[in-house]
């Protein structure tokens, strides 16, 4: 049967006309004394804690000019280490975004028997000191380990990174999934959406900010990971030397420009982290808006 649509008379409840889109505008009120004080405190705190150290590193990196900076990061050993670390961190972030979301989904929606045990297992990498994680990996994948020998291989490094970053996406996505309105998914289904469409258009846009923030955390952690990797890697330049290990090595080095070179490499990591942060945020906004 077809529904004929005509305007129903009489105005229903709660219609107050404010046409068009509204934009949040600044109120323009001056700050009151207490809020001015607390704002000042926050700025001071952030400056001392974050901005000052960052500025110091960047300053040090350019201590012998642009040329010194450029040669420090473009020499083949550094470039290879940077490529390896950034590549591994990106891959770990990607895998975590997918599998971490899946783990969170299963825990929230399927409520498996022994879910409590799962929760505990997921948190273990958080609780372990990283050097212990390194020993664990060595016991499994080392040359005398019980598992296949992955000592010094990219795969070994990658698995170790996945181990230490496992909880990030799970723990950011889980609470958002718990909060989702299941009625909305059922409404979409009754409007004709197949399950995959419901996920893509209703669930995904709502969880993608959490997935992105989990992936960002994973990436940052993986990029700077040292303790757990230094044991499973043989720290061979061009082969399996990761960038955090390289920075450590530079600092042990007594040659004249070593500290400046370490700061230059650190600055690159800083910029890459910031770029990934911005890129994931943009991506996340895009998906959340699309629906």
């Amino acid at each position: 049967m077809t529904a004929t649509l005509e305007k129903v008379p009489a105005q229903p409840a709660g219609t107050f006309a404010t046409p068009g889109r509204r934009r949040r505008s600044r109120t323009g009120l001056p700050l009151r004394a207490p809020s001015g004080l607390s704002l000042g405190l926050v700025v001071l705190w952030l400056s001392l804690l974050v901005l000052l150290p960052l500025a110091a590193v960047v300053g040090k990196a350019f201590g012998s000019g642009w040329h010194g900076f450029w040669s420090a990061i473009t020499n083949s050993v550094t470039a290879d280490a940077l490529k390896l670390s950034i590549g591994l961190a990106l891959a770990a972030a990607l895998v975590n975004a997918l599998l971490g979301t899946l783990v969170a989904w299963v825990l929230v929606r399927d409520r498996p028997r022994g879910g409590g045990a799962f929760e505990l297992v997921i948190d273990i990498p958080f609780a372990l000191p990283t050097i212990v994680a390194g020993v664990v990996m060595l016991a499994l994948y080392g040359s005398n380990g019980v598992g296949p020998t992955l000592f010094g291989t990219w795969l070994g490094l990658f698995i170790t990174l996945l181990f230490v970053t496992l909880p990030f996406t799970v723990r950011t996505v889980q609470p958002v999934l718990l909060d989702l309105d299941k009625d909305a998914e059922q409404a979409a289904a009754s409007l004709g959406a197949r399950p995959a469409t419901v996920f893509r258009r209703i669930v995904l846009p709502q969880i993608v900010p959490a997935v992105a923030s989990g992936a960002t955390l994973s990436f940052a952690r993986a990029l700077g990971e040292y303790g757990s990797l230094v044991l499973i890697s043989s720290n061979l330049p061009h082969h399996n030397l990761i960038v955090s290990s390289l920075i450590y090595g530079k600092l042990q080095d007594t040659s004249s420009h070593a500290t400046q070179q370490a700061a230059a490499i650190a600055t690159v990591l800083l910029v890459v982290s910031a770029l990934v942060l911005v890129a994931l945020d943009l991506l996340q906004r895009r998906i959340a808006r699309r629906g």
Partner: protein
Amino acid sequence: MGIEVRGIAKRFGDFVALDDVDLRVQSGALTALLGPSGGGKSTLLRIVAGLEKPDAGSVEIDGQDATRLAPRHRDVGFVFQHYAAFTHLSVFRNVAFGLEIRKRPKDEIRRRVYELLELVHLEQFADRLPAELSGGQRQRMALARALAVEPKVLLLDEPFGALDAKVRKELRDWLRRLHDEVHVTTVFVTHDQEEALEVSDEIVVINNGRIEQVGSPDDLYDKPGNQFVMSFLGPVTTLSGRLVRPHDIEVFTVPADDAVRAQVNRLQRVGFEVRAEMVTGTDAATTVQLTRGQSEALNLTEGVAVWLRPVPNSTGLTV
């Protein structure tokens, strides 16, 4: 045409939500499923929509067996108590959702969505997010969204349950008028007997997983099949061992045929009406509802003796 369910049963663990329910819903009618919470009415509605699987029985929608169909293949519009808005999408995109799924041309979607937004008086809110609407507006958006796909049946689960009393009443009148315009077979769940009596063409009273009675609002009010239906649809009191309506009792100040003697225990005035609590020999207490004028004409005061009898041909059930 319409909806036909046969032998529907549903348990949640040990709890029997529905027990062998048969029901025919007429095509084009506005039907209320009325009953106390936990009685099974929402479960029945969700089974018709395919959102819940029955343990036994069959569902037919518009002459087609739908028992095993997924919700998306049932051509059903569903409106939830708590709106189930797509919070990340604008009002326009919410209403357009079902049409986008059906891959209708862009300009057709646009035309149809604005037609519906006009129908539910939300045309100036098209670009808002659901969070920027009031509860009543959100529910009207949900209704437009459900109607957009031209469903064979429209199902509403306590649609006004989350709204305050005033908005609730307005939306109720508005739903009735909307139905008179759109004529889509509509079933709504409510626990509010006033809502059911006021809005629907037919009422199905459900309690403890069973259908107690089906009929027009007047039928159910005037000829209730049992005590549950009688007491659920309106106020009741007992007089001489019979269940009667408090407004169906005649009061005399002198003895009359078949009238029982009683004493006025308490008088309470509520606006234009007066509620009198009477004590007879046989009943615990009989409540009588009078107009203020009646009460004054009889000169009722607490403690006086009166004689009571049911209004001739009024509704009554032996307790």
